[in-house]
């Protein structure tokens, strides 16, 4: 149909759109998006061979449940990184939101509000970061680095410096440890987060604007995109995700831990980059991040199963990150 619409243009110059060429391009696209998934599969295969008790449904659930919190943080961070920004605050925002959910519970609020309010709190914090980045043009790195420090302090301040025990049975503990259709709730929440964000990024105009702002903010501005609003929105999304992760964390440990989530920001970013999203913005896929997060989860699970000393785990983790990214870059060299 579209071909028939464009006869006015010189037919000689019409691009070669043979279906063969298109399929080839499609294949390359797939490989460039999913090359990292191959790394994950290889890793799983390796672990299946060498780690005892690795292959089982319950271990798969284990891995995904353990991954769910960083994966959700990483999903939010992906959106920020797509705009060439960064969010270093997610670990601390998780802590503030997690702690506040228990504070609310202990104050006698219904379970639903104890989850919703912290999520909104996360969004509000994201709004603060986003406003500073978008409207005061401060570097995202430094704004969220300040956030990392300040919100951690706030989390401690909320509890006077110590963990906060939930009174009675925490009403929303199923967020952390419940099951739904035989699958743990955290896994559902992780999948839902990715499904929603995938849709928003790939199937809405907002998603195109995110990519455009990340790819060339000036061009986006010239094209009439409300760059500042888009920029603000991604930090809100990241804050929302961190808020959800915080509530899940609190649900999982049935208490408010002000020191929770420390260092998660770097884990989340590692997952994003492993997943193929460029830190320069404008390029990447949200589902790649999920794969990246699972790589880290499988690795850590496998090594615990193999009883690896903790320092060896750290070394292996570092090496795997570099190797995976290097493989990914070789692929890029081939497709470009």
């Amino acid at each position: 149909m579209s071909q028939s619409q464009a006869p006015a243009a010189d037919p000689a110059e019409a691009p070669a759109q043979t279906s063969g060429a298109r399929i080839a391009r499609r294949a390359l696209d797939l490989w460039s998006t999913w090359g990292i998934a191959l790394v994950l599969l290889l890793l799983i295969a390796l672990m299946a061979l060498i780690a005892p008790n690795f292959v089982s449904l319950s271990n798969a659930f284990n891995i995904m449940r353990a991954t769910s919190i960083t994966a959700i943080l990483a999903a939010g961070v992906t959106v920020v990184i797509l705009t060439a920004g960064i969010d270093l605050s997610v670990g601390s925002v998780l802590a503030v939101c997690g702690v506040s959910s228990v504070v609310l519970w202990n104050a006698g609020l219904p379970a639903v509000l104890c989850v919703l309010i912290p999520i909104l709190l996360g969004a509000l914090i994201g709004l603060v970061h986003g406003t500073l980045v978008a409207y005061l043009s401060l570097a995202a790195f430094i704004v969220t680095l300040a956030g990392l420090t300040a919100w951690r302090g706030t989390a401690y301040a909320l509890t006077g410096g110590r963990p906060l025990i939930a009174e009675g049975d925490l009403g929303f503990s199923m967020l952390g440890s419940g099951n739904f259709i035989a699958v743990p709730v955290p896994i559902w929440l992780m999948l839902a987060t990715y499904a929603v964000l995938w849709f928003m990024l790939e199937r809405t105009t907002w998603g195109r604007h995110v990519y455009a702002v990340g790819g060339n903010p000036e061009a986006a501005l010239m094209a009439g995109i409300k760059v500042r609003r888009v920029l603000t929105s991604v930090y809100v999304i990241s804050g929302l995700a961190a808020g959800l992760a915080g509530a899940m964390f609190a649900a999982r440990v049935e208490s408010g831990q002000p020191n929770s989530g420390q260092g998660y920001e770097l884990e989340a970013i590692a997952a994003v980059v492993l997943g193929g999203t460029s830190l320069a913005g404008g390029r990447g896929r949200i589902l790649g991040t999920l794969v990246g997060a699972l790589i880290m989860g499988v690795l850590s699970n496998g090594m615990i199963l193999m009883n690896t000393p903790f320092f060896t785990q750290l070394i292996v983790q570092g090496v795997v990150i570099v190797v995976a990214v290097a493989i990914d870059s070789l692929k890029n060299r081939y497709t470009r």
Partner: protein
Amino acid sequence: MTVTTGGNAKGTLLRMRGITKAFSGTAVLADVDVDLYRGEIHALMGENGAGKSTLMKVLGGVHLADAGHIEFDGAHVAFTSPGEAMDRGVVMIHQELSTVPDMTVAENLALGSEPARAGFVLDRRRLRSEALRKLGPIGGGIDPDLPMRKLSVGRQQMVEIARAIDQQAKILVLDEPTASLSDTESRRLFEVLERMRDAGMGLFYISHRLDEVWRLADRVTVLRDGRHVSTTRRGEISQNDVVGRMIGRQVEALYVREHRRPGDVVLRVRDLVGRDNGIGPVSFDVRAGEVVSLVGLIGAGRTEIARTVYGVDARGSGTVEIGGRQARIGGPGDAIARRIGMVPESRKEQALFSWMDVRDNITIASLRKHSRWGVLNQRRVDAAARQFIDDLTIRIRSPRQEVRTLSGGNQQKVVLSRWLANDPRLLILDEPTRGVDVGAKHEIYRIINEQAEQGTALLVVSSDLPEALGISDRLLVVRDGVIVAELDGAGATEEDVMSHATGVAKEAS
């Protein structure tokens, strides 16, 4: 001399009055008045830095004027963002490419106005079909599914134009749209613009190419140093007068080709084939004191030939000899060691260090000459920079001024000095006058000629045919990555070049 009043029956679409704008204390526009009628193409002319782009950015909501007011469609407006201006029907094609390289052509075409269902759900099918439709008038032959980055600069420019002309604009501003376009594309663009004018739109057209302006414009406004000099109907003023008003003096002969005495062969290229860029095999010589131009259609591969010689693009096979000796040039470093210099086609992306000062930009490739054990002799660096600032009459406040604050022509001169500072034996110039005003152009031609007189071999890539014909001793016509004809600079005509460049000549013979 001043604004022609009541000259157009269809009425005034836009009135800009007393527009004043300063950047960090430096006045860029001072009390400028301009009108735009319905159904006219209004050319803005002026030297680099005269304030043309700034004036248009004030109109388009990119900058807010410090003083003055704008009356559009009978109402006062002060757009605070490009989006707002666009909503009201003011669309701009900016001087700098503004596309998103990682998005596809189709997505770039829809940027900011993506087809959507329910207001936010992207309609991918319409995205593609609309892209094909938008590309029709000017950008046919571009695959809408390709990522933008895979397109040459010229084609990217065409996509941008296609996007702008498709919007239902009342005012369309084109800021040097043809800087990267070849003749064929330019001509197609002009047809579209004329149709838009006839439909009653108002168009602002900024260009440094007089022939284009004379072909298109109904009225010409000249700006100088941020001030309005004159607005006249095209027929009421000569090209020479316009140039005079722009730069405050007359330019008798724009092109300079004097005292050429070609000497020994400096560059000898034999059967050169690029490894990945699809050019070759090409063979040619450039002699000392000779200016040789590579000409051809956009995308013909001229830039790639130059880049392969310079070592930025990898060589597949073939040989390059410099001064009679085989040269294995593995990168720009090797080229520079053999006293080859190259001014790349994209100033901002490939040549300028925007945040560094003029001095550093001039000396960055010749620091070795001014240092011992890697420690710089500051005085000699300053002296070297000053010498070129004076020799090339680069207009700046201070050598420590950041180069990004210079106008295009002066920036180009800075880049040129960088290579002159190395006392080159062979100088490769890719589009040396793109986006440069006539005055500066003339000076650049003078510099080129001076270099040739001094025995430098010059290889020029130019899309501006009159320029290539005017300054070169020989022309090499490139088509599909190979050289299809060699023409004498003095004897050849534009028609000769075009017939070889498009392949017509071959079929005829």
